[in-house]
């Protein structure tokens, strides 16, 4: 692990993955509480055509342009999902599925057009499917660092407001908060973290960095502030593990490894989380059983003379009646 830190390239990759995981984890907390976990998945898949169009229009592989294209496409997808589920009898889950697959299909069509077409240096565009953390440079790390910092700042400043729209938007509206604006702000944050994550993790799996750390963090605490920080920490740890393991083993893509690391943290949380974890539930059940048995024993012990008296009584009655 430590010799890795001597290689400046790997150091950037490690830094980038950690920052990325952190930002995703923080924002993911709010999408988890708003039951919008899978929206991240839709936005990520939907970003693909945006990346392709940005490349086709500009002809250069500029990460900045790709991010703009991806964000535009993702926001269009979010608007369409809303339109379909609000203006027809299609349910929200089906609307998400439709938008996800149509946008992804458009992306695939454009990608194959680019590959077959006369666009000169197209190689590497398909790296966006699974991401390529190995190509991360110092500039990317600054972008990721800026995003992570911005995310933490915005979430910190608007913490109370986000808390309100996550738990009880109707109440927030009643209090006079601009709930719709806040919802759009959260949507924008999700779009930004997903889009910046695509480069490292890829469109197919980036949503996992949003979902899994926050679900894992939910097992440890009932307080939103603690959950947000913990989720960010889990995300950062998964990013670090992904970068570290994939740098050691040839041919291993960083994105899927980060996702598996996050899943590992999730499983640990399911097992060992206080109160909600399987182990503590088992212990609680055993404790309850023991309490119950000892209570019954105590009752039986205290009741023993009473039952003797009880059995003696009917006998006495019988005796009396006889």
């Amino acid at each position, binding site marked *: 692990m430590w010799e890795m830190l001597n290689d400046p390239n790997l150091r950037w990759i490690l830094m980038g993955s950690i920052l990325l995981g952190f930002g995703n984890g923080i924002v993911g907390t709010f999408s988890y509480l708003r039951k919008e976990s899978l929206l991240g998945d839709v936005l990520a898949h939907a970003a693909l055509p945006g990346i392709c169009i940005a490349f086709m229009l500009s002809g250069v592989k500029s990460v900045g342009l790709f991010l703009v294209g991806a964000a535009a496409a993702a926001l269009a997808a979010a608007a369409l999902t809303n339109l379909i589920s609000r203006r027809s009898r299609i349910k929200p889950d089906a609307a998400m599925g439709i938008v996800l*697959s149509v946008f992804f299909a458009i992306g695939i069509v454009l990608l194959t057009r680019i590959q077959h077409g006369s666009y000169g240096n197209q190689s590497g565009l398909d790296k966006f499917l699974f991401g390529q953390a190995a190509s991360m440079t110092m500039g990317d790390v600054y972008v990721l660092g800026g995003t992570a910092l911005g995310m933490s700042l915005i979430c910190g400043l608007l913490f109370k407001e986000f808390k309100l729209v996550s738990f009880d938007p109707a109440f927030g509206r009643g209090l006079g908060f601009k709930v719709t604006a806040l919802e759009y702000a959260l949507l924008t944050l999700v779009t930004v973290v997903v889009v910046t994550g695509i480069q490292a993790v890829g469109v197919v799996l980036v949503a996992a960095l949003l979902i899994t750390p926050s679900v894992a963090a939910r097992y440890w605490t009932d307080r939103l502030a603690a959950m947000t920080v913990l989720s960010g920490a889990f995300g950062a740890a998964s990013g670090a593990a992904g970068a570290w393991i994939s740098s050691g083993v040839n041919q291993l893509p960083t*994105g899927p490894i980060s996702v598996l690391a996050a899943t590992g943290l999730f499983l640990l949380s399911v097992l060992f989380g206080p109160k909600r974890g399987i182990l503590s539930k088992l212990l609680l059940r055993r404790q309850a059983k023991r309490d119950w048995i000892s209570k019954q024993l105590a009752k039986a012990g205290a009741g023993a003379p009473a039952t003797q008296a009880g059995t003696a009584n009917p006998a006495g009655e019988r005796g009396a009646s006889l």
Partner: protein
Amino acid sequence: MSGFWIVLTGALVASCCAILGCFLILRRMALIGDAISHAVLPGIAIAFLMSGTRDSIFMLLGAAAFGFIAVFLIEMFRSGGVQSDASIGVVFTALFAVGVVLISLNARNIDLDLDCVLFGEIAYVQWSTLEIGGADLGPKAVWLLGFTLVVILLVISLFYKQFKLTSFDPALAAALGIPVALFHYALMGLVSMASVSSFESVGAILVVGLLIIPPAAAYLLTDRLGPMLVISVAVGIVSSIAGYAAAVALDASIAGCMVCAAGVLFAAAFLLSPKHGLLALRRARSRAAA
């Protein structure tokens, strides 16, 4: 001739998916279809590593097993207190990641590349043909998909009433003594089967397009399950034909074009459906206002 086989394969994929998708939409489980189509990947990879061939019954079994594992895990975490959307998200991304890692680790030994997993290579179906006793019987994919379609049709038509009732009113179905959980898992098994037999031609991710879009279009056009199934299959078949034509014209991914064509048909239904379309609803509203 190659065009014929490609369109036939596409139409078979679309029919399998369109039938099952209707039930998924009605049960509000559209995203479970998405999850299963991702989650079968490790099953495909493991079966492929063990058997070394692309067209084995092992692959079908392996994928179906992982489809079941995914559904089971999602149910388990949900009953353990995780929100259902998050539970779906955690499970399918984890399984998909396992599949990607397995394939990348063995990339040298097996010819199963990730592009193919993602968006399929329907253009190659005619190169791998089924030969029995020296007679060329056509592409293997067509036989596999045909077999899957027959199984789906058999199961659905034998238990049509049960599937219908469990989709619309599971509580009533349970009260009448229909094993609701059994039919839930039967449907999930069929979805896994359809995902894996289609994955080679349309890829793991685009399967979900054909699972959801044609039934959603049909859902906007009718209020009855029977016609919904027929319309859904028709939309699926039309999109595979139109998609192939578009792909030839554009020189682009055939499976991608098929899903885009389905998307165009859905958009038409969304806007123009006589009863549930956007324009019809708007007209009804303005009439009510007047």
